[in-house]
């Protein structure tokens, strides 16, 4: 019996995390509690900041000094993290951030699931520089994707999000042990860094600087348009030129199906249930679970479109991911959203109703 909070925390610890700072917020506080209880036992440090702004600041400081850092929050906390996430992108600091989504806007429904921060995670900072967002659909994936997030953060020296939600984080479920122990058959993330490796402050290290301002390779402020352009292009390209490596989906395609259901996170569990039902009724239907929401796995999505005339996209928001898929597919494919923003999870029955039109 385990909840998503424990699975995520265990994933972080097994990935080598030795520093956590965070601020209590429902539904992410379980992760804080697990980390602060477990970190000292492995010789790491965890503590609660006076607010979200300081908490992520502590993480950035610790990461720059060589620690492997992790933090978790929910939508309102992400608002407060936002400026520092921009700083981490600019300074190229590896950060893993779990977002346990709840229904917004503002305080919203603090104890209810939602998937309303999908665009917010991607575009939370000034300049719109890319981040990586991974979305587990269940508890074992929460564990394995968290471990993967740390590899990606280190490799790209960039913030990596785990997009989860209240129901995944706070529901205790019984989980098959082998699914927790055995990693899914996902391609390995190479360990060598893209670009310069992180050089923490060593006792006899080379002096170097970080700044949130546009800077030279050595970390000194510059106003030279060529250097600034080069640097900004590199920040963008280091992620976007590795989309194939970052892309992670589960394609459950059926020959002859003309309907594809695409989902992610907790909503994908209803999708899986409905696919089993439909197939048992003799229907032909394909399903695609997107684990790497950002950067968008365009090729992997397009690979699933052969013979598809209609795509159904269940998500607990007003269609944040549907609009992304819209621009990837031919206009003759019909896109239908199944959307809820009323605190209730999308049920398999609702998807079924949409399927039958």
């Amino acid at each position, binding site marked *: 019996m385990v909840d998503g909070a424990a699975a995520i925390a265990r994933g972080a610890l097994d990935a*080598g995390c*030795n*520093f956590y*700072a965070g601020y209590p917020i429902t539904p992410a506080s379980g992760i804080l509690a697990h980390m602060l209880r477990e*970190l*000292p*036992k*492995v*010789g*790491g*440090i965890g*503590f609660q*900041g*006076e*607010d979200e*702004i*300081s*908490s992520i*600041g*502590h*993480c*950035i*400081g*610790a*990461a*720059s*000094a*060589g*620690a492997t*850092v992790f933090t978790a929050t929910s939508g309102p906390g992400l608002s407060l993290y936002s*400026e*520092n996430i921009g*700083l981490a992108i600019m*300074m190229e600091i590896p950060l893993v951030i779990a977002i346990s989504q709840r229904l917004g806007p503002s305080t919203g429904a603090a104890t209810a699931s939602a998937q309303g921060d999908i665009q917010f995670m991607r575009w939370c900072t000034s300049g719109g520089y890319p981040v990586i967002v991974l979305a587990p659909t269940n508890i074992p994936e929460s564990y394995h994707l968290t471990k993967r997030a740390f590899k990606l953060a280190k490799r790209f020296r960039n913030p990596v999000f785990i997009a989860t939600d209240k129901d995944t984080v706070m529901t205790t479920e019984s989980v098959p042990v082998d699914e927790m122990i055995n990693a899914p058959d996902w391609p390995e993330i190479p360990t060598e860094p893209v670009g310069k490796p992180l050089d*923490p*402050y*060593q*006792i*006899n*290290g*080379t*002096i*170097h*600087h*970080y*700044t*949130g*301002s546009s800077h030279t390779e*050595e*970390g*000194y*402020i510059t106003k030279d348009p060529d250097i600034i352009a080069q640097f900004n292009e590199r920040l963008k390209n280091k992620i976007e030129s590795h989309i194939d490596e970052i892309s992670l989906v589960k394609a459950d395609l059926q020959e002859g199906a003309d309907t594809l259901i695409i989902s992610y996170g907790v909503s994908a569990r209803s999708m899986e249930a409905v696919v089993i039902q439909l197939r048992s009724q003799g229907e032909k239907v394909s399903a695609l679970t997107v684990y790497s929401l950002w950067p968008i796995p365009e090729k992997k999505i397009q690979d699933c479109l052969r013979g598809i005339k209609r795509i159904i996209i269940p998500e607990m928001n007003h269609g944040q991911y549907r609009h992304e898929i819209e621009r990837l597919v031919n206009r003759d494919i019909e896109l239908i959203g199944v959307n809820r923003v009323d605190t209730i999870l999308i049920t398999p029955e609702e998807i079924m109703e949409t399927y039958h039109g």
Partner: protein
Amino acid sequence: MSEVLTSIKKKSNGEVITKLSPKEYKGKVDPDWCPGCGDFGLLNGVRKACAELGIPPHKILITSGIGCSSNFPGYFNAYGMHTLHGRPVPVATGVKLANHELTVIAVGGDGDGYGIGGNHFLHTARRNVNINYFVMNNQIYGLTTGQISPTSNFGTKTKSTPFGSIELPINPITTAIMAGATFVARAYTGDSKHMVEIIKQAILHNGFSHVDVFSPCVTYNKVNTHNFFKQRTVHLEDVDHDPTDWKAACEKAMVWDDEIYIGLFWQNKERKTLEDLDPVLDEGGPMAFRSLGLSKDKTQKLIHKMM
């Protein structure tokens, strides 16, 4: 890495003396501050203090926020992190916990530290992390060309208070003392010798050291000028102040008249720091460089400590 040792001498008894020069701490970039800016004073003062204490550049990390004064780390040869407006102190805390063998200094201005970063100032003081926080206080927003700051006096006319400020300024010294800082001092950049002594004491103090440094803005503050401070500043050491008497410290910190006190207001040497109290940091060097996981023996000890 630049050569950090200026001179190595051997005494007759064979003891090696290494002497550092303030020049070792000169950064690769020259300051873009206005000629006459008080911030030059603190920059030179911290270089001198570090040299006199013999702390080489690669054992120092300086964080800063945003503002004129926050360009400081770029002008200083040590590890540097030029962070966000108001956030140098949380970042400094993170660095200190990950690598507590570094001398960690956070710098910034009055708007950065007492305005937007005020919350972090209070809570870091309360936590008593062993870092040093030097605030270049010019009682004005300089980088944004002259708006009211949290330390501007009542009645101050600025671009954002065209009819004069109707707010009272914050008192950084009493605020720091009340928040639980264990070393609280004030210095003036125009009184260099005194300031360097304060900075050295702050760095040597085991705990959160806060120094409010009068650093006049020659461009946007025509009231709190070098002349203003030269005529008024009085050394606390000359008036028989006892820095273990917090009531006397607060009374003296409230004086803003023909006399303004500078020096060490308050020091508590007894209180343990956050690092002292963290069971993980008691042995084994910087946390960030240790291998994850503990020996059975150590785990047992730790659990025992935490129970």
